[in-house]
């Protein structure tokens, strides 16, 4: 057992990357998220678990203002990224999403070359001055996403021609190409086979030294494997949030207990 892992489990001095206070979300009349307070810690993987419709994806989508695109959605409360309110009028959601990247459930590469999939973000955000710099970002992103060796000889073939697992890693490469500070993942492995899942989980563990990762997953075992913190949502409430090992061996709340041991749906 590495000492560092034990240290992490102790109440950590990790600083809070995202601070949410009193967050409420309404979809029209439907009160989807009720008074959520949470601190997402830097350099850690935080897993959101809970049954379908519990609000975990809704909360995830608040963190990079994806809910702005849903016309009926209304968000109240405060969400701070490094102390700055991300819902402040002066914040450009597009810039925010470069800092807070997202990977979705189904791999959704652009119908373009592998290279262009990764180069797109850095290009539109004007992160490079020339082709050489762009090449460098594409390569390093694909390397971080553990995909480089498989695609380096066919960077100009369409991203949609890759296998499902490769497509998902391509989407991760695309998300990290803009050097985000936080990476949000909404069930990133639900469409992948066990080997591709293991590769993505390995990747998550690798990249968390550089980004804070928040992952929504329906696989309890995946949450247990990849995260250091786990938050359990139920019916719009954040029921319990704590160190992952503690949540899975001795949860404090009976609702958490029932859910993670397979007693309520």
């Amino acid at each position, binding site marked *: 057992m590495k000492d560092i892992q034990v240290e992490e489990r102790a109440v950590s001095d990790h600083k809070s990357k995202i601070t949410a206070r009193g967050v409420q979300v309404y979809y029209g009349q439907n009160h989807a998220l009720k008074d959520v307070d949470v601190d997402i810690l830097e350099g850690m993987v935080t897993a959101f678990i809970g049954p379908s419709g519990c609000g975990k994806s809704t909360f995830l989508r608040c963190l990079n203002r994806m809910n702005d695109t849903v016309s009926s959605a209304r968000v109240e409360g405060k969400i701070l990224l490094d102390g700055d309110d991300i819902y402040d009028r002066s914040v450009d959601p597009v810039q925010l999403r470069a800092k807070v990247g997202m990977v979705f459930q189904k791999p959704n590469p652009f119908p373009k070359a592998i290279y262009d999939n990764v180069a797109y973000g850095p290009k539109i955000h004007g992160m490079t001055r020339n082709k050489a710099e762009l090449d460098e970002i594409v390569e390093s992103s694909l390397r971080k996403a553990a995909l480089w060796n498989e695609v380096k000889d066919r960077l100009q073939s369409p991203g949609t021609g890759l296998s499902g697992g490769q497509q998902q890693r391509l989407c991760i490469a695309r998300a990290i190409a803009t050097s985000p500070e936080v990476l949000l993942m909404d069930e990133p492995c639900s469409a992948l086979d066990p080997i591709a899942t293991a590769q993505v989980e390995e990747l998550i563990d690798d990249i968390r030294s550089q980004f804070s990762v928040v992952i929504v997953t329906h696989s309890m075992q995946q949450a247990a494997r990849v995260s250091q913190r786990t938050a359990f949502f139920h019916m719009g409430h954040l029921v319990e949030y704590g160190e992952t090992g503690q949540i899975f*061996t001795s949860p404090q709340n009976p609702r958490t207990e029932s859910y993670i041991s397979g*007693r*309520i749906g």
Partner: protein
Amino acid sequence: MEPHIRSAFDKDLEGIQALVMRMGGLVEHALLQAAQALETRDDALAEDVRAGDRAIDEMEDLIQTECARIIATRAPNATDLRTVLTVMRIVGSLERSGDYAKNLAKRSLVLAQMRPVNGAAGSISRMARTVVSLLKDALDAYISRDAHLAEDVRRRDVEVDQMYNSVFREFLTHMMEDPRNITACMHLHFIAKNIERVGDHATGIAEQVLYLVSGEMPLDDRPKADTTTEMPHVQG
């Protein structure tokens, strides 16, 4: 606790706990029979206890294998995980207690060839009955998730310690009075020490109950009364 959505999981967990109770029954029986064999100098009964230890060992293997299978196939969490972990620790304690019963039976065969030491077999028998009642209560506390009863077992282990202290002095006196008692008293002392250890295992099981119920191991030192390590044993 409400049942699992997958009912086969409940059956698996109930299954291993039922096996633990059966194994506990075998160990309690072995201890009482061994103590009786000592008291009544019954060689046949002692041989039965020795032979019966194999069944206890096989039971342990079976339960450990079942636990490994549940971990591999069901990936238990929370209380389910603690149930499997505590079962594995408890059967370890029971197996060890079974070994002590077997050892008692073996020594009783040797002691049956010697001159009886006055009152010793009776004291040992009382100690064995006390320890068996602790073991029984610890297992009852386990199956009914009864933290109060578990605490009670932890407290009552003091009685066993005190009985051990008193037989320790008793044997010492016998040995000083007549050196011909030394061989028998050495055997009797090992027996008493082993029974005292069964008491510690019962306490350990009670602590597993507290862990199962609360998710935390009890921190405070349980009461102890074994003072023989502090006494000046040999005089003169």
